[in-house]
């Protein structure tokens, strides 16, 4: 008995009982990947840039020393908040990306079945993968600790906030990572895992609160709707405990303005999130075992069709839906239109997803209408921003994956061994990327149609948004295809395009802002921001929506929205200037997009293998 207990304790204490050799192998492999070093460098650079801009924004250089010192505590709070929120979102996105190939790579390279022929069990596979990536993310979180500790000296930030925010971030990262790992078990393509994980997280973080609010007929955020009611407070308390966004938002709000918070126990929140992660990982362990055993016995089918076949739900010869379709028009375009919206997902399931999205969207309309805000311009500006951001993200993912997914499925060389020209191939791929973004643009179109009809949006917004979407699509698609020709791995290509977008539209304004503040030339940043897609969207929608603007004649529309442009002096301008700004931006970005297309065409037949 004693020996048995001692043996059990010995096993538990021994390092590696939970992960086996997987953990060590993953660390070894990741240490050889250049992209991980790039990732850390970019993370630190972005973080430093964020901190610097907040610092410069709060502690003005032109003020007196005494004034500057008096602003230190405010600066300390702002910097800590920036760092905390930055790492909260950034590390979750990274967790999803880093774990998107955790199991699919093993399954795709047929090593999962091999692992099952060793004493390694599925728990060790899952935990080995999970903990090795988690360690890398912990390193990123650890990088910020010295900054937080130093800034804390400025005053105003409690240790409790640092601890609670760190724990909430960590448990959110574990949850996001677990979800990505789970989805990667049955998806061979990293981008599909990323899109699905983001979709699920989006539903959990944003749609679920809306649905709960709609069901309980209360507001879903502090200061919105009838939040003073008991049910509203109850809903917020619930959301704070199950939703990391609400949790981090609450502890940050308390840090900024102590005593204004609701009852919130962050240890309970973290326990709940760990519990949810545990459930996801437990299911992952179970499914990994099934898949691995199937592969070990030569039955693995990773695709959705293959899974159905393996489960015996469909006859083998009938695994692609519908009758045989004849090839019409250009071959690549036909093939791309024939493929499902998302690889491995039946179009039927995509349509179900779209219907759910539409229902959720209608739900938000209903909730907003209950608040009486549906005729406000900021509401439509927010919707516009949401659609354009979503469309942009989808465009990045789909354009960056069009070529690399062919490379990964080893069909790229077959396609290039045909007499198709590089332009024909690229055109087909561009059409494919655009087609996959169509549902988002259709939702935006639907939104515009409904509210133009209702008299809440001016019809000119359709013209302006069309210009915006055109240049955004051409630029992002060109960049995506170019990086697709440069890289062999989907994840690398997607990350490269995201990095470009972040550089242009996040880092660019930040660095520009820093330089402008140092030189006291904020107007330059404002001018730069006019070329920003989000700013343009908000300007278009804020200027042309709401009952105040929708009925105005064209000449009376005013697009000078001071709320957006970094507090710069308000400069009123009309529809003519807005159109010129859009056309000018469009010309620049379409030009850049075409340069990317040209480079992609030049590189198409290089790095084939």
């Amino acid at each position, binding site marked *: 008995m004693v020996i048995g207990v001692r043996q059990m304790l010995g096993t538990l204490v021994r390092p590696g009982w939970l992960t086996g050799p997987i953990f060590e192998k993953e660390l070894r492999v990741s240490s050889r990947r250049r992209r991980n070093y790039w990732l850390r460098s970019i993370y630190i650079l972005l973080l430093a840039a964020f901190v610097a801009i907040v610092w410069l924004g709060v502690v003005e250089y032109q003020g007196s020393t005494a004034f500057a010192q008096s602003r230190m505590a405010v600066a300390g709070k702002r910097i800590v908040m920036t760092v905390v929120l930055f790492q909260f979102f950034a590390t979750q996105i990274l967790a999803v990306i880093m774990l998107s190939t955790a199991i699919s790579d093993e399954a795709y390279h047929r090593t999962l079945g091999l692992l099952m022929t060793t004493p390694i069990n599925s728990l060790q596979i899952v935990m080995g993968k999970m903990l090795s990536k988690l360690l890398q993310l912990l390193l990123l979180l650890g990088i910020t600790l010295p900054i937080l500790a130093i800034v804390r000296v400025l005053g105003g930030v409690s240790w409790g906030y640092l601890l609670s925010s760190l724990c909430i971030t960590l448990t959110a990262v574990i949850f996001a990572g677990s979800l990505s790992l789970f989805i990667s078990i049955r998806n061979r393509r990293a981008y599909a895992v990323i899109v699905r994980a983001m979709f699920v997280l989006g539903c959990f973080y944003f749609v679920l609160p809306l649905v709960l609010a709609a069901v309980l007929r209360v507001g879903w955020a502090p200061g919105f709707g009838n939040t003073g009611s008991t049910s509203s407070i109850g809903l917020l308390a619930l959301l704070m405990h199950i939703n990391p966004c609400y949790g981090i938002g609450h502890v940050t709000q308390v840090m900024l303005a102590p005593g204004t918070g609701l009852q919130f126990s962050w240890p309970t929140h973290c326990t709940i999130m760990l519990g949810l992660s545990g459930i996801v990982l437990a299911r992952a362990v179970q499914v990994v075992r099934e898949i691995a055993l199937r592969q070990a016995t030569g039955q693995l089918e990773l695709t959705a069709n293959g899974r159905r076949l393996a489960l015996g739900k469909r006859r083998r010869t009938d695994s692609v839906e519908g009758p045989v379709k004849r*090839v019409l028009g250009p071959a690549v375009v036909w093939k791309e239109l024939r493929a499902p919206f998302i690889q491995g997902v039946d179009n039927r399931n995509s349509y179900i997803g779209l219907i759910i999205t539409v229902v959720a969207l209608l739900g938000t309309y209903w909730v907003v209408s209950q608040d009486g805000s549906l005729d406000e311009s900021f509401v439509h500006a927010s919707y516009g921003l949401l659609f354009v951001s979503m469309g942009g993200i989808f465009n990045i993912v789909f354009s960056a994956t069009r070529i690399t997914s062919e490379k990964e499925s080893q069909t790229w060389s077959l396609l290039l061994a*045909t007499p198709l020209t590089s332009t024909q191939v690229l055109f087909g791929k561009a059409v494919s990327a655009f087609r996959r973004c169509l549902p988002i643009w259709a939702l935006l179109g639907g939104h515009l149609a409904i509210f133009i009809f209702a008299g809440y949006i001016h019809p000119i917004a359709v013209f302006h948004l069309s210009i915006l979407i055109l240049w955004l699509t051409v630029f992002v698609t060109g960049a995506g295809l170019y990086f697709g020709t440069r890289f062999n791995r989907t994840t690398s290509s997607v990350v490269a395009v995201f990095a470009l977008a972040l550089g242009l539209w996040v880092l660019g304004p930040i660095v520009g802002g820093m330089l402008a503040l140092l030189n006291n030339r904020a107007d330059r940043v404002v001018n730069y921001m006019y070329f920003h897609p989000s700013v343009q969207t908000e300007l278009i929608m804020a200027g042309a929506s709401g009952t105040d603007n929708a009925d105005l004649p064209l000449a009376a529309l005013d697009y000078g929205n001071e709320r957006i442009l970094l507090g710069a002096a308000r400069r009123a301008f009309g529809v003519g200037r807005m159109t010129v700004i859009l056309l000018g931006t469009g010309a620049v970005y379409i030009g850049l997009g075409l340069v990317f297309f040209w480079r992609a065409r030049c590189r198409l037949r290089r790095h084939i293998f």
Partner: protein
Amino acid sequence: MIEITKLTKRFGSLTAVDSLDLRIEAGDIFGFIGPNGAGKTTTMRILVTLMEPTSGAAFIDGLDVTKKGKDVRRRVGYMPDFMGVYDDLKVFEYLEFFAAAFGIEYRKRKAIVEGVLELTDLVSKQSAAVDSLSRGMQQRLGLARVLIHDPKVLILDEPASGLDPRARIEIRELLRELKRMGKTIMISSHILSELEEICDQVGIIEHGQLVFGGTIEEIRPRLGLHSKVRVKVLDGDEQAIELLTALPQIESVESAGEYLSVTFREGEQTDGIIARTLVNGGVDLVYLQPEQLKLDDAFLKLTKGIVH
């Protein structure tokens, strides 16, 4: 039909193909043999315009592969050493897609696809999803794909790898049929005995250089390999060895278990001498069988098996 002159391909410090010279006549089946990393696949990829050579030239049907890529691709059917499939297409759609990619008119495509499906015995699978096919079926589909535009030249990179014996025999028969149709075929394989049966010429490559090129019959004298005959006698092995060793044409006689292995001196094989000698010597002859030179032997003798 295929001509390669001083073809060189370098990847950094590694020379994958080193001044390779090769000529394949129209209508021939050429077996391309070499150990892993010898440069077979790189050569094939250059021929099908998927890679550019560092130096040298390659011509298919008189067209320079580096300058007339599009025209070359119209004349060549390439089957790589992996089976790339589009998960979401059916067999018919897959073939018609490539037919369209090769610029075949819409009204002709159906008949052409049905033709290659029939040739490759895939008619019953035309509505099946490509990724649901077995490996053997997928290989056949790969062959159907390369035939879709009726190319003059087929370049097949290990088309029989990973297949079971039945599927291998089927692929072999299909290649014979294609030869009868007048196709020029360049095929690489590690299953050397298969190439032996279907190839008109073979080329053995190592370190990117051709160490042998010619017919299988030409290999023996090139390697200094002497003709051998297997002799089985009813009894009296020792007497048979004594009789045969005495012959001036015979270099050696060795007992190989059930039979005797008789090696002739170079250029001295004489039909009937062994049978005549044994019968006249009173030994009961059961059978007499010439030993064929196996391509495997030549391969092992010619290559050192060193991988880059």
